[in-house]
């Protein structure tokens, strides 16, 4: 039982990183009504900039974090212009395919930039794990969790208490009406993308600093984690994204513990498949509006 609870604790901590990734996907899908397959890769590119600074200049973890975020945002802006803004009038499919093409570009770019298979990432903290009764809290996990919570609060504030957030929500709910209100939809999409890339950059840094290494396949990995988490929890809703991330984290840790490494990812995909077959709306089910459900169907 102790193990089970310990795994849940670890799972929630790790899952908080996944939740951040899922939030990124959710916001982009809400605002642009498109899927961005380059989300993970753009974060990865930012991480590569970070690791470059770390390896070449022994930069401090905070500097690496900032570089990761900046790199992710710049890569994200590139993706937004090429795949989404330029294909504004095309079908959603075209944007998705284009984002896949850019994913390949970014991945190879990273490999060309830094040809070794793996590069080091600075650790989050050096402190020992905290003991609470029979349970351990790894300090880097705790750091990740706390930062994630703060970030979610920031996103919520931006969305619900700022003019920009109001425009993001308006565009997500009714694009045409938002135009008629005087909202510059193109600008909203661009800056929403930048915001989401920044969140992704932070999430990426937290995850990589916990593992202390980065590879070019992090992009694919991050995209999948974000997508799975988003779909598990209830697609299109922010609480769903968070819940999905936490559940994914718990499922991974539990299956790693009880079934071994070979079954870790398998369990996650199996759970996702099951959820989709039985309850496509995700665990939080009807958090989606009819319009969003229609958008998912039409992609």
């Amino acid at each position: 039982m102790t193990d089970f609870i310990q795994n849940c604790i670890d799972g929630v901590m790790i899952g908080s990183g996944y939740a951040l990734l899922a939030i990124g996907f959710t916001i982009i899908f809400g605002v642009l009504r498109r899927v961005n397959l380059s989300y993970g890769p753009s974060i990865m590119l930012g991480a590569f900039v970070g690791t470059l600074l770390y390896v070449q200049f022994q930069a401090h973890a905070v500097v690496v974090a900032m570089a990761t975020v900046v790199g992710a945002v710049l890569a994200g802006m590139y993706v937004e212009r090429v795949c989404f803004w330029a294909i504004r009038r095309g079908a959603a499919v075209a944007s998705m395919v284009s984002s896949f093409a850019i994913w390949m570009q970014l991945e190879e770019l990273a490999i060309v930039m830094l040809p070794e298979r793996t590069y080091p990432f600075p650790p989050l903290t050096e402190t020992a794990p905290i003991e609470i009764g029979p349970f351990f809290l790894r300090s880097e996990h705790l750091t990740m969790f706390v930062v994630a919570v703060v970030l979610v609060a920031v996103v919520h504030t931006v969305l619900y208490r700022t003019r920009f957030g109001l425009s993001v929500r308006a565009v997500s709910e009714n694009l045409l009406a938002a135009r008629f209100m005087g909202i510059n939809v193109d600008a909203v999409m661009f800056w929403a993308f930048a915001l989401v890339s920044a969140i992704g950059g932070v999430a990426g840094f937290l995850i990589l600093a916990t593992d202390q290494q980065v590879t070019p396949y992090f992009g694919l990995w991050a995209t999948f984690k974000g997508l799975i988490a988003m779909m598990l929890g209830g697609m299109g809703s922010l609480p769903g994204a968070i819940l999905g991330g936490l559940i994914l984290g718990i499922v991974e840790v539990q299956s790693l513990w009880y079934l071994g490494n070979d079954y870790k990812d398998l369990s996650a995909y199996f759970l996702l498949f099951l959820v989709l077959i039985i309850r496509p709306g995700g665990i939080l089910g009807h958090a989606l509006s009819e319009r969003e459900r229609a958008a998912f169907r039409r992609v």
Partner: protein
Amino acid sequence: MDDYVVSILSNIGMISFLALSAYLLLLTGEISFGQQAFFAISAYLSGIATAMWGWPLWSGLLLGALAAAAAATVIGVLTLRLRGLYFSIATLAFAEMVRLLFVIFHYQVVIDGEPVGPDGAEGFRDIRWVFENNISVTEYMVIIYTVLVIVLTLFFLLERSRLGSIFRMLGEDTLLTEMQGLNVIRFKVLASGIAGFIAGIGGGFYAHFATYLEPQNFSVMLGVHALVYGLIGGLGTALGPLIGVGLDIGFLEAIRAIQGYRMIVFGGLVAVLLIFMPRGILDEERIHWFRLTWRRWRDAKR
């Protein structure tokens, strides 16, 4: 013909099956990220049949393709309720499950004192039926293309058949199709099965060409590539996906100068292409225009 060129052409041929498989589902309006699972299932099963059970190539290929079709049909039924992105992610999840299952799949028999068979992440070696039976690489390539031409001919016939129209109708508007009295379920499942079979043919050929399989060959990258080939080549005709395959594996491979930058160039090319031709090169409109022009020219000559 130079061995290198033969191997490139063979590759194009085999991947074309996978691209056509994704294309068929695209016609019915579904974006599948997971056709590589059926490619893999057939590859492994046909390899097992010929290398471990002593079956001849044809039987092995057929078994593999049928198994792929069966699996695809099951998945087709399970995902019936799902549309759009839900469907796509479900196919992705399934394909990854298949890949991960092959990582833990061990099945070996001893042949001539050596263990032969799929060994999890270590892979499945020595699928050597083609070499043991003295079929040259060139002959094998001809076999692949012969089957490909047959499949293309079938697609050509499909386009002109009622079934083909029904498939495209499904892609346009499922509700409308239903209101015509057509059993949407039956056709969707049929499309899934056929697509699985086609992917399976490619997989069987691949197993015997490469002689060595490992689970990571059948990653999402493979599947999304297959999908993208159709989307950039255009969905107006079955030649569309082939153009996509040829563009990536053929044309770009040929340009040695960009060795190591192929993805960067291909990715950029695709992105730019989609800005000007969001529905691909040979999309329905363009094909329609071709047909009209050809018909006009033909009528003018009378």
